[in-house]
């Protein structure tokens, strides 16, 4: 054991081997290439959404509804469970703290800051990512590996229009709708937990605290954020499933990359919205 410790210590004191620099450089280059690829894919998707807006509506509309159901309706129960738990966690942690400083009147403000502005959209995005985003990569990656994308091209069907656009719209609307339900659920369950903890707060006072803390910017940021989270997750997962030739054995790796990158991009977007909110 001492020998191992000594070796570790030497390793930390040793100059960074060239291979580490290569390793980091490779990772950075890959990251830049991914950003470039994702950017191009997102722009192509946007262009297809605009140029083929009314094309084949009788085929694409049922698909959009199906993806909305998959990224929204079917995740409703799980979202409600998370919302109730979220209300409990926040109230449980906050009530004792606010009581200590005699600031019960800020309970509603805390709920708005934490649930409406931050955790609501982010948690919903993570729920949808884990349930539907990962499935997206597997489905599209498998379709790509089995040559279904070439079959679409041979039939003159634009794979972006047929496979990506319904997912982007469905997921954006799904996350937007679920975020609203999650926030409502968390705010209501928050009061319920506060009531159970004997916080001297009437429903009227609680909801007036909430309304006083909310402003128009909150609604605009909430809507933009949840829609963008949905679109981002859909674009990242579709990109990893579709944009490059895949073999079947590479689908699992692509899924892991897509999920990790979706989380990173959602966090970056969230940080950007904090800046926008502070400036606004």
């Amino acid at each position, binding site marked *: 054991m001492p020998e191992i410790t000594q070796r570790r210590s030497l390793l930390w004191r040793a100059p960074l081997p060239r291979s580490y620099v290569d390793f980091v450089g490779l990772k950075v280059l890959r990251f830049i290439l991914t950003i470039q690829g994702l950017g191009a894919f997102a722009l192509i998707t946007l262009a297809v959404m605009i140029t083929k807006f009314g*094309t*084949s*509506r*009788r*085929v694409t509309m049922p698909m959009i509804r199906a993806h909305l159901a998959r990224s929204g309706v079917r995740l409703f129960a799980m979202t409600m469970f998370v919302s109730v738990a979220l209300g409990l966690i926040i109230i449980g942690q906050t009530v004792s703290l606010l009581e200590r400083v005699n600031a019960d009147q800020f309970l509603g403000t805390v709920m708005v800051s934490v649930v409406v502005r931050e955790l609501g959209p982010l948690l919903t995005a993570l729920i949808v990512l884990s349930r539907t985003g990962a499935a997206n990569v597997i*489905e599209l990656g*498998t*379709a790509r590996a*089995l*040559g*279904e994308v*070439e*079959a*679409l*091209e*041979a*039939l*003159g*069907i*634009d794979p972006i229009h*047929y496979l990506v656009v319904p997912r982007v719209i469905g997921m954006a609307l799904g996350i937007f709708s679920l975020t609203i339900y999650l926030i409502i659920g968390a705010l209501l369950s928050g009061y319920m937990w506060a009531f159970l903890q004997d916080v001297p707060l009437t429903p009227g006072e609680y909801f007036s605290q909430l309304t006083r803390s909310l402003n128009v910017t909150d609604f605009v940021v909430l809507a933009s954020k949840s829609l963008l989270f949905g679109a981002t997750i859909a674009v990242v997962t579709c990109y990893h499933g579709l944009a490059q*030739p895949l073999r079947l054995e590479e689908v699992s790796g692509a899924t892991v990359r897509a999920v990790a990158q979706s989380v990173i991009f959602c966090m970056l977007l969230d940080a950007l919205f904090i800046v926008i909110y502070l400036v606004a």
Partner: protein
Amino acid sequence: MSAEIIFQLTDVTVPSRRDAERAVVEAVNWEVHKGEFWIVGGLQGSGKSDLVFMLAGLTKPLKGRYELFGQDMGEHFGDEFLPNRLRTGMVFDDSRLFSGLTIAENVSLPVRYHQNLAVEESASWLTALLKETEIVEFADDMPSSVPRNWRVRIALARALALRPEVLFVENALRGVDTRHAAWWVAFIKKLWAGHPLMAGKPMTIVASTDEFRPWRNCGAQFAELEGRKFLTHGETAPADDEEHMMTAGEET
């Protein structure tokens, strides 16, 4: 007056469909006219599928000029090719059915997508396609539950859904039993002559194959891929590889 040229290859180098930078067949000079029926044979790995992929506009020629319906396929490869793409149909040897759709949905998808039809609006055409290709019983099944012999037929029905003028068939007889092989040869002949399903209009057909034997005496013209070269044989089918070997054995 000679028939309209459907496609023309001038000194074309065909790329691999898996690696677009790698050449598999070189110096292809070939002209196919309206109403012609070609069988392109060759051993596995000779580049038959790569050639059919390129002819169907799924890959670009590495070198040379490929014109389909007078359009240079080296330059036009995006949406501008769409009107001409809809005049062609492609049958993949591994069928490439959409795994998330039922057989009926697979077959009706192209016509529904391009003509913006609801399911019920495409029902009569779908029924006709399923009946003619004898796959009605699989209509509500998912592709994974259908045997391979039938899946390639479903791919044929899907390729015919838009009533194409030209049909590219990638090695449809690979791995199918003799009953299905006989059905394929007869059906392709009917399509070439003018099938009622296609309003009696004769089709131009290019089919690839591992062996020429099933396609003999069906009126087709034959071409062969050998040693990265493309050789045409006219209406005389070249000997299959095992026949070559048998002949060589007799000579010795």
